[in-house]
């Protein structure tokens, strides 16, 4: 599970986040919403441990995975290496299985630049789920995709989350996405941003 307790987060003199406290249980999926620029990505970066400069504490499990706004792949390594290098304990077979699971098993030896954007997103999902994450963070993972592809990726993410049951936090602008994927919606609002309502 994930336990978040952020007292303050400042950038210089500007306070961006204050008093944000919530937990996400294993198997639970929580959507994080709020107007753009409010600090959602900042909060996710704190939760993921990318940014550790803040007042408060965050408890997260060892096996953490994140899907970024962009695929964020290593363009100079093949699809299979993109999984195997990030999860060195996994082994070749499990890495291949991870690719198969998102339907790009045939692309194992291709470089990301040779794949379509949809396939790159699938690879990013495969990387996130390859090592059976206990916690999963998704930062607007389907932004900038056309509606059809976004729907397809949403279905894929839903089925993967259903299989692995990680504690999941995801940021989205779309109410539909939030409604279809999550058990619970948290909203950020105000200046500095804090939780405004628990749905």
């Amino acid at each position, binding site marked *: 599970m994930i336990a978040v307790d952020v007292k303050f987060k400042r950038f210089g003199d500007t306070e961006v986040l204050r008093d944000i406290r919530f937990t996400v249980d294993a198997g639970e999926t929580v959507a994080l919403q709020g107007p753009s620029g409010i600090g959602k990505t900042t909060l996710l970066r704190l939760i993921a441990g990318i940014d550790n400069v803040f007042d408060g504490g965050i408890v997260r499990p060892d096996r953490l995975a994140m899907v970024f706004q962009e695929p964020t792949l290593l363009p100079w*390594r093949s699809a299979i290496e993109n999984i195997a290098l990030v999860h060195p304990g996994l082994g070749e077979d499990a890495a291949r299985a991870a690719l198969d699971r998102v339907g790009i098993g045939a692309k194992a030896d291709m470089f990301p630049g040779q794949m379509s954007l949809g396939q790159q997103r699938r690879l990013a999902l495969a990387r996130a789920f390859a090592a059976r994450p206990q916690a999963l963070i998704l930062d607007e993972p389907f932004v900038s995709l056309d509606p059809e592809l976004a729907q397809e990726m949403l279905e894929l993410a839903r089925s993967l989350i259903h299989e692995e049951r990680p504690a999941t936090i995801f940021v989205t602008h779309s109410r539909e996405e939030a409604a279809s994927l999550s058990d619970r919606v948290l909203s950020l609002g105000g200046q500095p941003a804090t939780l405004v309502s628990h749905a």
Partner: protein
Amino acid sequence: MIVRLASLLGLLGLWIIAAWLGNDPEVLPMPGALLAPFWTELTSGPLLYHLAMTLIRVLWAFVLAMSVGLALGLVMGLFPKIDKWLDPWLVVFLNLPALVLIVLCYLWIGLNETAAILAVTLNKIPNVTTIIREGARALDPDLKAMAQVYRMSRRSYLRHVVLPQLAPFIAAAARSGVAVIWKIVLVAEFLGRSNGVGFQIHLYFQLFDVAHVLIYALSFIAVMLAVEWLLLQPWERHARRWRGA
């Protein structure tokens, strides 16, 4: 390829015209007149021995300067505080004439191999550092965040995330490195070694033998072209194969 060949032939043509106008083989011999003495130097003379000596020094200085420059450039690019402290040193060493470093190394260490190679290495390090520092400053923060979330080991991060991003900068440093290093090696040999292309050029300079000076210089240019075409360019193609794919 055809353009390159034509351009080189043009240079040769210019040489022939200049030699014809000058009309003094002592000052500038015709290119054809070099062939016979070149063949003698190659087969029964010491040309290969001196080429090898120079090549070994170039190799040593190259490997040392690239390793130290890579490490320094990375550290300075990644840690702005260290960069602030070391940057003035870099400017000093970048502007120190090669000749001064060579003379000082010979004076302090002695007229030996260590001094020669160290002098050349010190001359080249600031240059490599500057290029690699640019690369380190341009590293992708998103990939760094990804590596952090998935807890990639430091080693794996360096090898698979950082180094591929630096590859174009390393290639640029290597390319300009080889070219500059062999010129400095020649100066070091000219001043204080008893073998190598630079030493031979010193010898024929004192004899006012333009033909042999040209033979040694051109032979080594040929060696460096071979290094460029047979080693550097294939390596670069391999390193950037993912781009064209």
